[in-house]
C-alpha cells in the first residue's frame, strides 16, 4: 500500500509510514489519535452541549430564586455557586455523559472501518495492539475532557451567577472554598473514571461492525438495558455487578471524611468491565480478517 492514500487519516499515515523508534512512534500514534478524536465536529459539539449544562441549570436556579425549596445539591446552588459544579456533574451523569461517551467510542473503530481506513491500519499486524491502546487512551482522555468541561463551565457560571464561599459538606461540617473546589475536581475525576466501563463496551462493539451508527446504537442500547436492570428491585442479587449500580457514589467525596468504600467498589467494577471488553476488542481486532 502507498502512504499517499492515507492522507485522510493521520493515524494511518503513521502506521503505514516509516517507523521511527518505538517510543516516539507510540507517542506520535497517541497524539494523532487524540487529534482525530478532538478534531471531529461531533466531539466539539458534544463538549459544547456539556458546557451548556451548568449554564442552563444556573439560569434556571437563578430565575427560580433561592426559595425554590429543592433538596440536594440543586437546592444548595443559590447559596453557594460551587454546588453548580457538583449538581451539573450529577445531572449529566445519567444521560449526557454516557451519550457523549457512546458516540465517541462507537465511532472509534467502526468509523475507521466505514471510511475504509481500518483496512490499511490492520495490514500492519504489529500495530494492531498499539492501535487499540491508542484508541482506548484517547477515549479515556475524552471522558476526562467531558467531565472537566462541566467542571470548568460550572465554575465560571457558578462564580458569575451566585455567591461563593465556604462549602457545606453532607456531614454538616464546613470546609474552605479551596478544599471544596478540590473535592469537586475529585468528583469530576471519579465520574470520568466511572465512564471507562461504558467506553470499553463501546470500543468492543465498535470493533465488531463497520457501521458507526450501529455501534453507537448497540452501545447505547446496552447502557439502557443495564439501567433498566438496575431499576428492577427484584434483581438485587445481580445489582452489584451492573455497570451503573454505584455511579452515584461520587457524592461520598462530599462527606467528612470522604467515604471511599463505595467509590473504590465502583472503580473496581469499572476496571473489571474495562479489562473484559478491552480484551474482547483486542481479540477481535487482532484476529480480524482483512477483507
Amino acid at each position, binding site marked *: 500500500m502507498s502512504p499517499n492514500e492515507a492522507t485522510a487519516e493521520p493515524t494511518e499515515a503513521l502506521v503505514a509510514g516509516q517507523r521511527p523508534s518505538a517510543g516516539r512512534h507510540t507517542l506520535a500514534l497517541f497524539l494523532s489519535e487524540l487529534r482525530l478524536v478532538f478534531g471531529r465536529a461531533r466531539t466539539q459539539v458534544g463538549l459544547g452541549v456539556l458546557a451548556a449544562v451548568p449554564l442552563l441549570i444556573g439560569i434556571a436556579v437563578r430565575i427560580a430564586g433561592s426559595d425554590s425549596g429543592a*433538596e440536594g445539591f440543586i*437546592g444548595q446552588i443559590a447559596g453557594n455557586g460551587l454546588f453548580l459544579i457538583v449538581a451539573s456533574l450529577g445531572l449529566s451523569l445519567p444521560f449526557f455523559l454516557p451519550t457523549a461517551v457512546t458516540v465517541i467510542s462507537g465511532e472509534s473503530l467502526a468509523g475507521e472501518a466505514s471510511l475504509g481506513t481500518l483496512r490499511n491500519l490492520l495490514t500492519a499486524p504489529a500495530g494492531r495492539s498499539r492501535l487499540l491502546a491508542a484508541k482506548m487512551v484517547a477515549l479515556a482522555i475524552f471522558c476526562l475532557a467531558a467531565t472537566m468541561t462541566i467542571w470548568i463551565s460550572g465554575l465560571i457560571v457558578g462564580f458569575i451567577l451566585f455567591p461563593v464561599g465556604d462549602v457545606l459538606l453532607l456531614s*454538616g*461540617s*464546613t470546609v474552605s472554598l479551596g478544599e471544596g473546589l478540590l473535592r469537586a475536581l475529585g468528583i469530576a475525576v471519579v465520574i470520568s473514571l466511572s465512564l471507562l466501563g461504558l467506553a470499553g463496551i463501546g470500543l468492543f462493539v465498535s470493533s465488531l461492525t463497520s457501521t458507526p451508527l450501529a455501534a453507537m446504537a448497540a452501545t447505547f442500547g446496552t447502557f439502557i438495558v443495564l439501567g433498566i436492570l438496575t431499576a428492577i428491585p427484584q434483581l438485587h442479587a445481580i445489582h452489584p455487578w451492573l455497570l451503573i449500580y454505584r455511579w452515584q457514589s461520587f457524592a461520598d467525596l462530599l462527606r467528612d471524611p470522604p467515604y471511599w*468504600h463505595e467509590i473504590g467498589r465502583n472503580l473496581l467494577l469499572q476496571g473489571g468491565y474495562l479489562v473484559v471488553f478491552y480484551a474482547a476488542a483486542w481479540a477481535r481486532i487482532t*484476529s480480524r480478517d482483512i477483507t
Partner: protein
Amino acid sequence: MGVAQRSRRWLVPVTAVAVVAGVGALGPVVADASPKLPGISAQDLLAKVQTAKVDGLSGTVRSDADLGLPAIPGAPAGSEQLTEMLSGQHTARVAFASPDKARVSVLDNQAERVWTTDGKSAWAYDSSRREAVKLTVPEHKTTKPEKAVPSYDPQAVAKQFLDAIDPTTKVEVSGTEKVAGRDAYKLRLVPKTDKTTVGSVTLAIDSKTWVPLDVTVMPRTGNDPAVEVGFSSVSFDVPAASTFTFTPPQGVKVTDKKVPSQDRPKRVAPKQVEPKQTKPGTAKADEPTVIGEGWESVAMIRGAQTGQLTGNGPLAQLLAKAPTVSGTWGTGKVLTSKMVSALITDDGRVFVGLVTPDTLQAAAAKAPR
C-alpha cells in the same frame, strides 16, 4: 495466521471474564476465612461480653434487612424512617467515647443524616433538608449499652441467663469468623420451637474486647439472612472530641428543643434494627399486649385505625389480597412474610409476631377481647 490460532486469542477475554468474576465473587469469601481461636464455652463467652468495656470506638456499620415486608406506598409520615430502616441496605458511621459522647451518621444516597452528642447538647442534622435540631440534654449521665456495671458476678449472670433461656433456646459457640478484620467468636441462639419464623440468631463477638461486632438473624426457611447488622470496619481508639461537636453551618435552619424527660431519643445503630416492631399505621394505638412467651410471643394492639383498613388506601388494597381466616376469636385477614406475620381482626385488633400464622391464630384465641 491460522483460524485455530486466531480463535485462540478469544481465550484472553474469556479468561478476563473468569478472573474478574472469580475475584468479585470469591474475594470476600477468602477474606472471611475463619480464624483460629482458643475454644470457649457459651457461658464464658457471655460472661466476657458483660465485662466488655471500651473507652471509645469508631467504625462503619452496615445493615442489611430483608424481612420480606410488603412495600406500603404512602404509609403515614413518621413511620417511614422505621420501615426504611427495616428494609434494604444502610451504611452508618458510628463513633463512641466514654462516658457520654456518641455520633451516628447514616450515609444515604447523596445525603447524610447525623445524630451526635458531646454529653452537653445533642444535634440531629439532615443534609437533604439542610435542617438541624438542637436538643439540650439535662444534667445527668446517660446509660450506654457498651458500659457494663461491674458490681455483680458476670459468670453468675451468664449462667442465670443461660438457665432462663434454656427451655426455649439452644445456645452454642458455633465457630469463629473474621468481622471487620478482627477475630470473633460466633455465638448462636437457635429457637427450640418450630412456631417461630426465626431460624437462628448469631452474634459475632470480638475475641479481644468482647464487644459484639455483628448480629445476623436467619429465617427458618431460606439461606439469606433476614437481618444482618455489623461493623464493616472498626477501631477501638478513642475518637477525637471534635468528632462529637456540631457547629450549625450557615444557611441551615436550626430548631431548638428542650428535653424534659430523662430519656433522650438516641440511636445506637448496632442495636436499633430489632425486627419485633409494631406495624406502621398503628403507632397511635394503645400499648401492645404480649401474648405467649419466648420466641412465640405475639403482640396484640387494640384500636388500630380500622378506618384506614377499609376504604381505598394502599393498606386496604394490600389487605384485600390477603387471605381471610376465622376461628373462635372472630374473623380477620392474615399477612405473612418471610419473618413477620400479622393478623388483623375485623374488630380492630392487630396481632404481630415473628411466628407462623397458625401460632398467631392460637394467640388470638387466647387473647382478651
